[in-house]
Structures are given as C-alpha cells and as structure tokens.
C-alpha cells in the first residue's frame, strides 16, 4: 500500500482553473463517496483551499487508481482529462508524504510560511474521517503531519517576519510602539492598501483608528469596517498631534504632510514618537520628516526592502524546515515498515488461538468438565499464559522489523525472546 496525490496549486494552474476544481463543503461527501467506490482505493483525503486542490489516495496500484480519481475530478469540473493533466501534478510514495508535510508547514504556499494552511490541512483530515476516507494509514499520516508541522513552527522562524507590504508596515509600527492597544492610527486614503493596513492594525489591537479621504463617504465606509471614525480631509492635519501611526496611500501628486506640519504636531506631543508609513507613489509624506527627532518615515521602497529581507530569511528557514520534514518522513517510513509485520503477527496469534481452542476442547472432554463456569476459568488461565508467552517476542518482532538486517535463526531467537547465553 502506498500514498499517491493528484493535485494542482498556484504554481501549476491559473486561478480560473483552480476555481473550477475547488470542492466546497457541500460537495465533499459526494466526492468522497465517488472516490471510495473504487475497491482498490482503501483510503482517501481531499484538501481544497483557494490556492490548491489535492486528492490523496492510499492504494496498491497508484497508476490505475489515480486515473480513476482524475476521471471523477474531470466529471466534477467539466474539463477534459487531457486538458486537466496540463495543470495537475502527481506524486507517489515517499514524494507524496514529503509533499503533504511541505504543504502543512506552509513551504508550498504562495506566501511561504503562512500559518493558515496548517489549520486547513487539519480540517481536511477531519473531513476525511467524517466522510469515511480515513483508515490506519491516513490516521497515522495525520499524526505525523501535525507533529512535523509543530516542530517546524517551533524550531524554525518560517512563520516569522511578514512578507506582505501592509503587514510589514504594521510589524514595523509594533517594533517602535510594542503594544498597540493604547496607540492611535490615522489612515490617509481609503484604497486597497489602506484598507489592508487598517485591517492588520485592527487585528494587532490598535487602540483608535481615524480614517480620512478626499471622498468622505469612502473614509466613512472604511472607518465603519475597522471600527474607527472618519474625519473630513480638510481637517486631518489637526489629527496629527494625536496620532502615533500615520499610514498614507492616496493618488495625490503633491506632498500632503510636510516637515513643518510634523514639527508643529511634535511640539504638542512631548517628543512622543510618530511613525509614518507612506505607501503612495508619488509620495504623500515629505521624506525629510525622517530627520526630525523621534519621528520615523518609511516609504514603499523601504517596506519592499523589509519584505525582501524577510522573504530571504524565510527561505533560509525553509532549509532548516526541510531537515525536520526529512526526519518526519523517516519516522513515518519506520512505522510503515513495522506495519508490514502485522499480517505475520496476526497469523502467528491465530495459530496459537487455534491450538488453544483445540486443546481446551480436548481437555474438557477428557476430564469431563461440563460446567460453563469451570470452562471459563480454564480458558482465562490458558489465554493469560498464551498472552504472556507471546508478549515479548511479538513486541520485539514489531520493534526490529523496521531495522533492515539479516539475522541467523539463533540470533533471531535471542532477539525475540530476549534470551541470554547460559554460562
């Protein structure tokens, strides 16, 4: 039995194709039923997020059975199989396990190291249990995926250092002010960048947000979304003295905030720091303001430099993460190897059970033990004896089965029964 994955993601398919293949919650049950209808597919799991759709199957013949999954997917999205093949990838065996570990750790994400994917993978495992796709293999894979991802998140900095401009801006603000709960922000503009930055500030727990825009209604709408207040564009300079963080992204062609405005604001602030983030091109905030004491100005290029540095840092961390993934893979393969011995153990135990039953029958007949109570006591005794005798060799059989090596019969006997040479 091995794991195989058929999938597509932001690297292999454009958004139009990803949209068509996406499986929403209401379709999951039907998809699981269709996939599991194939007798040769023993377990299955579907991961469907905005950036990826992946079908994992546990099978003994992945080439044939992945084709049947492709057929189901083709029917579901209404795309020809030949067309679908252009956008999909297939991994099997070790590669598919490595792939799911990479996905869960965020190494395969559009924004490397983003944490949401881990939750989505955990949800997918849960859905797979709910819709009958999970068996021993996937349950163990879930355990290893969670363990490996947690290790990667704990011991590497893959999730640290923001890699989006708006988030980097908020992180920089946190680097100056620490806690944002008692700080106030002024957002100049109501475009997409301002909206993102305002939402990140809200998530970071900013104390007060004020939004201003040339079109007052837009400012009011954004203020409403982020739980702040709107002010008229003509009045925003009066707000500077009460604002710790100022984020600006407007289409203005002239400077909106000059050094004189900031000097005036600082005279009312008892030298409390001010942090300006200028995401606009052309710039809204005079770069000379950075020269004023306790005032920090960052423009879009500075933020991009932060993002690039952070991205490089995450790439370095990804190398460390791969070491943990390889360790996880090794551990999982040890489990797979140990599972190969299970049929042998079952057969051995079955043989002992048969002997036990036959001997009990023979003994009861010979000594005329008819009472059910007496027979139960006898069976309890023999079963206990048998279990004790088998416990050590079966335990050792499982433990050493993953270790590749050849033993002579006497060595094997010593290992199984933990025997020592008679002196």
């Amino acid at each position, binding site marked *: 039995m091995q794991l195989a994955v058929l999938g597509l993601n932001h690297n292999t398919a454009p958004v139009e194709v990803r949209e068509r293949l996406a499986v929403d919650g209401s379709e999951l049950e039907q998809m699981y039923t269709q996939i599991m209808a194939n007798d040769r597919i023993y377990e299955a799991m579907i991961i469907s997020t905005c950036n990826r759709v992946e079908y994992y199957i546990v099978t003994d013949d992945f080439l044939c059975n992945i084709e049947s999954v492709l057929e189901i997917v083709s029917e579901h999205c209404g795309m020809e199989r030949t067309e679908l093949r252009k956008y999909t990838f297939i991994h099997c065996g070790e590669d598919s396990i490595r792939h799911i570990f990479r996905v869960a750790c965020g190494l395969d994400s559009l924004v490397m190291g983003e944490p949401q994917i881990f939750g989505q993978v955990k949800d997918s495992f849960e859905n797979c249990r709910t819709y009958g796709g999970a068996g021993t293999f996937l349950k163990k894979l879930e355990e290893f995926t969670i363990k490996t991802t947690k290790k990667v998140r*704990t*011991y590497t*900095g893959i999730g*640290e*250092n923001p890699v989006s401009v708006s988030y980097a801006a908020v992180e*920089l603000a*946190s*680097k*100056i*002010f*620490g*806690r944002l709960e008692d700080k106030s922000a002024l957002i100049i503009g109501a475009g997409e960048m301002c909206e993102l930055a305002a939402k990140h500030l809200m998530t970071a727990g900013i104390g007060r947000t004020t939004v201003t825009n040339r079109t007052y209604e837009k400012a009011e709408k954004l203020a409403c979304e982020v739980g702040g207040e709107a002010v008229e564009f003509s009045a925003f300079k009066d707000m500077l003295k009460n604002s710790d963080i100022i984020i600006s992204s407007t289409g203005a062609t002239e400077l909106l905030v000059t050094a004189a405005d900031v000097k005036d604001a600082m005279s009312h602030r*008892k*030298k*409390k*720091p001010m942090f300006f983030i200028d995401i606009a091109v052309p710039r809204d905030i005079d770069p000379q303001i*950075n020269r004023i*004491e*306790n005032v*920090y100005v*960052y423009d879009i290029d*500075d933020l991009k*430099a*932060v993002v690039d*540095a*952070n991205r490089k840092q995450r790439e370095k961390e990804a190398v460390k993460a791969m070491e943990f993934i390889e360790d996880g893979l090794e551990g999982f393969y040890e489990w797979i190897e140990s599972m190969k011995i299970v049929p042998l153990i079952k057969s051995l135990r079955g043989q002992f059970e048969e002997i036990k039953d036959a001997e009990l029958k023979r003994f009861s007949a010979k000594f005329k033990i008819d009472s059910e109570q007496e027979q139960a006591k006898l069976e309890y005794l023999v079963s206990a004896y048998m279990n004790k005798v088998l416990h050590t060799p079966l335990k050792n059989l499982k433990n050493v089965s993953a270790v590749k090596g050849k033993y002579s019969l006497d060595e094997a006997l010593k290992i199984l029964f933990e025997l020592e040479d008679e002196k």
Partner: protein
Amino acid sequence: MYFDLSILCSVLALLHITLYFFLGYGRLVTITNLFAVLGLIFSSAQFITLWSSAHANPFGSMSGLLLFLSQALLLAYILLFFKFKRPSIGLFIFPLAVLFIIGARLLGGFSAMHNPQAASLWLYIHLPFTIIGTAFFMVSTFCGIMYFIQERQLKNKNFGVIFRRFPPLDTIDRLINTTLYIGFYTFTIGLLAGLVWMIYSSGRINVFSPKLVFAIITWIIYSSITFYKQLKGMSPKDTALSTIVGFISVIITYIGVAFFVAG
C-alpha cells in the same frame, strides 16, 4: 565548588543567549533562563557558604561585594524576563555577571570582620539594598544603550539581526523606567539605612566619608532624573540618554572619590 559552578552557569547562559541572538531558536531562551537561575542559586550558595564558614561580614571585602553584585544582576535579569519576556538584555547582563563572579573568585573569600559591633542590622540592610540599587542602575544603562542602538536601526532602516532581536522602542522605554525606579527606591532605602548605621556605630554622620560622598552623589544624580521625569515628563530618548549620562557620572564620581581617598 559553588564558585566554579556559578561561573560555568553564567558562561553557559551567555553562550545560549548569544546563540539565540543569531539563530533565533526559542528553546535557547529557555536554556538561557535555566542557566541564569542555576547561576543565581550557585552564587547564592557560595555567598552563604563563605559567610557562615568565615563568620565574616560578607560585604566587608571586594570579593563579597562583587559576588553579591553578580547575584543582583542575575536576579535583575530573571525578574525582567518574567515581566517583559525580552531575553536580549541578557547579552549585556551576563558578561558583566561572569566578570564579577570571576573577580570575586580571584580576590579570594571574605575578610574577617574588623569591628564585630559594626555588623548591626542596619549594615545588613544598607549594603544589599545599595548593591541591588546599583545593579538596577547598571541594567537601566544597558537598556538606554539598547534604546539608542534600536533607534539607529529604525532611523537608518537596517533590518538585520539587531532589529529583529532587540525589543521595540516602547518596550525598552518601559524596561528603562522599571529598572530606574526599582534602582532608585532600593538605593534610597540602602542609603538611609547606611546613615542610620553610621549614627549607631560611630555616634554621628561622617560627611567626609568617601563612601558616603559617593553614595549621596549617586543618589542626587538618579533622584534628579526620576524627579524630573515625574514632574516635567521626559521623552523615551531623553530618558535613555539620562540613564547613560547618569551612570557615566557615577563612574566618574567614583574614580574622583577613589583619587580623593588615595590623595
């Protein structure tokens, strides 16, 4: 043996905090804290052992003073970590703690008590409180230095390892305030206890005692900073600068007093 163990633990704490600074693994901070606590336990054990075996005034020699100062620094690190969870201050504290313990070891044990009567309760309040106060003043100076380093990173837009590991400016400011106030209050208690002890042991306050002159100048410098902060308010940058200037003034005064005594 406790001397060697406390040196070893402090060196290991320094090593792990340096590794954390460059590698960023959170687990290294846990190990650092463990060694800091062990270092404090062993240096305290050493202090108690010497005290009880020599029956000497533990603060009566330079060795004892340095040992207690290193304990106070380790204690300051542990308390500040629990309150602020910012381990990078250890980069400044541990080297000094290591130096002080090594210094204490090289200078030998405690000297025998010259004047048993001098060892009153007031002395045992005066010296520990003064030393703990000095340790916190030292830490506030380190925080002031950290503030200027981090401020430069932000102004010059350097996003390297210092920017990532040093605390935010606001947090450094809170660290400075906390250490400054703890230092000031403990030093004040120490100074007052010292004056009472002086009256008890010699019947009067000897205003020409170099130690007293030094202590009073230190107190005046730090009380000026704290009162000015309370009354007029100070920007974080000015506070950081005042801690550094304050500590340099203390060192200059100390050297001046030492020369005066030698003279």
